[in-house]
């Protein structure tokens, strides 16, 4: 297997932020409005805090094995056969996530921009670009992602300044009118939007040694904090600019908000935003295919296959399935399955492994 080069804390920040963003933010205010209504922002904030707890678990797990990545050290916790099974499942999870993300964004582009262009062409173009980039090393990938970070910043500013076209803070009141139950359900629904921080599972041992584990935790916290701020602000803006009735029928309220802009020299800022946003989606997809390849390559201790072969294999599978999945209803169903899978793979499995690792270590000291 190729030896990874180290990445800086700044690159880790970019990787985590871009992987977290994905497509969910486009529809987050819509999904949350149906559950938590005017308390969407609160649900998203709580979900961000839950994400931070998840980061603590991954960080704790990584700091136990600072020399190896997750797909390699699981053998030390649960043994080689179980490790192979876990890696196989993780690889499949990332391919599945890549498929969903590719489908979701090609669906958005197909509905919003390219009505005549066959969707498979859009999907193919996205997958080719992502597949090509995912064959790179972690450092090269981090460099690409770091370059793309300008686009979500621009997109965020466009959303933020759309507030000048009038907002109504009364829309946020009364707070918690239906109690905590919808907010907690909304927080659960929003959690999948924070998924992506698990890139730390693989990247931990390759982050520059300066500052050690605390610096890694600080970087992760900063990245998650920025994502949380992004989501909360987006939800606040959408809730104050649209009524709950409107949010319930507009699946991508952020793009809709941008239709408000009236600039003499620039037409259709919503279209521009969707093009900008492709860079975010691409970055997330690249990381997914990269992680899938790394998980498969670690099926055996001595390594299995080449990264490029695994990446292009995953891309081909996604493309073939993508040809058959065309109905939006089916894509949404797949998304809800992926939400549950995310909780399992990003929260439950690492948490269980941390407990097992703790018990084993405790047992070792005793013996």
């Amino acid at each position, binding site marked *: 297997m190729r030896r990874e080069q180290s990445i800086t804390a700044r690159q880790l920040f970019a990787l985590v932020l871009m992987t977290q963003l994905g497509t969910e933010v486009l529809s987050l205010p819509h999904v949350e409005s149906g559950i938590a209504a005017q308390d969407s922002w609160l649900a998203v904030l709580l979900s961000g805090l839950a994400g931070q707890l998840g980061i603590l678990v991954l960080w704790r797990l990584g700091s136990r094995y600072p020399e190896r990545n997750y797909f390699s050290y699981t053998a030390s916790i649960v043994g080689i056969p179980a490790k192979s099974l876990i890696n196989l499942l993780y690889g499949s999870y990332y391919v599945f996530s890549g498929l969903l993300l590719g489908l979701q964004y090609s669906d958005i582009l197909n509905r919003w921009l390219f009505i*005549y*262009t066959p969707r498979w062409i859009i999907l193919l173009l996205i997958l080719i670009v992502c597949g090509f980039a995912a064959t790179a090393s972690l450092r090269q990938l981090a460099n690409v992602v770091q370059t793309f970070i300008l686009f979500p910043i621009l997109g965020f500013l466009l959303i933020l300044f759309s507030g000048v076209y009038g907002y109504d803070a009364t829309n946020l009141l*009364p707070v918690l009118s239906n109690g905590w139950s919808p907010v907690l359900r909304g927080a659960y629904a929003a959690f999948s939007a924070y998924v992506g921080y698990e890139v730390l599972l693989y990247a931990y041992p390759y982050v520059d040694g300066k500052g050690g584990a605390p610096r890694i935790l600080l970087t992760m916290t900063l990245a998650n904090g920025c994502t949380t701020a992004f989501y909360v602000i987006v939800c606040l803006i959408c809730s104050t600019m649209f009524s709950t009735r409107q949010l319930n029928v507009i699946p991508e309220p952020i793009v*809709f908000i941008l239709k408000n802009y009236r600039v003499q020299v620039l037409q*259709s800022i919503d279209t521009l935003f969707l093009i900008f946003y492709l860079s975010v989606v691409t970055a997330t997809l690249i990381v997914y295919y990269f992680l899938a390849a790394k998980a498969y390559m670690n099926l055996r201790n001595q390594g299995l296959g080449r990264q490029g072969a695994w990446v292009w294999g995953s891309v081909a599978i996604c493309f073939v399935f993508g040809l058959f999945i065309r109905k939006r209803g089916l894509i949404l169903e797949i998304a809800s399955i992926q939400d549950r899978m995310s909780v399992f793979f990003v929260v439950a499995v690492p948490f269980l492994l941390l407990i097992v690792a703790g018990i084993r270590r405790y047992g070792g000291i005793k013996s």
Partner: protein
Amino acid sequence: MRKKGSVLFLCLLLTGCWDQLQLKKLLFVDVVGIDYADNQQKLKVDFIISSLQEANQGGGKPSSLFIGSSGSSLYEAVAKTNKELSGNLSVLETRLYLISPRFARDKPLSYLDSTAQFMSNPLYAYLALYDGDLSELLGRKTIKERTVPDFLIGLLDDEKERGKIPSNKLLHYILGGTEFRNDFALNRFEPYQDGVRLSGTSLFTNGKYTGINLTNEQTQLANLLDGAAGRSQLIIGEVNNDNYSAFVQGSKRSIRVIAADKDVKEVDIELKVELKLVEQDLNREKYTDEKLAELEKGIAQNMESLAEEVFATLKKANCDYFQLAHEIAAHHPRLYRGMNWEQEYPKLRMKPIVKVTILNSGILES
């Protein structure tokens, strides 16, 4: 070589594939007029397509083309128009949706909701009402030597800039509306001499036109009471037999709900305005502090009595223009849950409180 080849290949991807739009084939719909056809079973949809003829650097001759069509929906009307005119109708630049009173009285928003489906449709387009023959208006070549779209939109743009009228963006009303209740006042045009003019606003309740209107003066005050910023709106009136004219420099609105015994007793809408006094008798003695206070009080009283007229008209139309229901639901949710708003709003006690401060008298001393 490989890099150059990749760059050339990428250039091919920039052509927009199947969705490329050729500028020369686009027909930019500037204004859409919607009325019922005579049998009221179908919509009568008129389009004004604007273009620039003899275009040259930095200029050209604006021209507009009128096309009328009908259909059971906006989509059907567009499809029919496509059969009569070559090119692609585009709503990329649509600036105004103009509706007739009879269309507005029925269920206008259920038809207009479909505009949200138009891709690349900017939602900053105005929605306004024309109290006259819509096709006749839109079919004219020019009004006062300007194209019809430029004339109508120019009026709206200018008056909105002066803070005298509500902004009335289409997005505010479609898909259930951005407000808590879809009650609003829509800018109203009416025929005037050989042209048209803005004539106050038409009141809508629950997305339907009530047939009741506010005058221009009432609209301006309603706009201020709705929280519009001071943009030099002109206030005119008479105190102690002396005419005054003043420009609003600053404006701040606040709402106070007085509730007791599980009931809303009164809603006070307070408006604090800062004025620049521009018309007064220059030959009189200089204003003393007492005289100025008396004038401020007189102007406030005038504005309060006009506000009471506005409130009475709004209640008569059952139009909650100030979204008081939202205020009560947000700050007194339990109280609101026990109310039947549509029945109780016309009986609601609403009190205007206007506080006037005269900041200066323009560039002359008085």
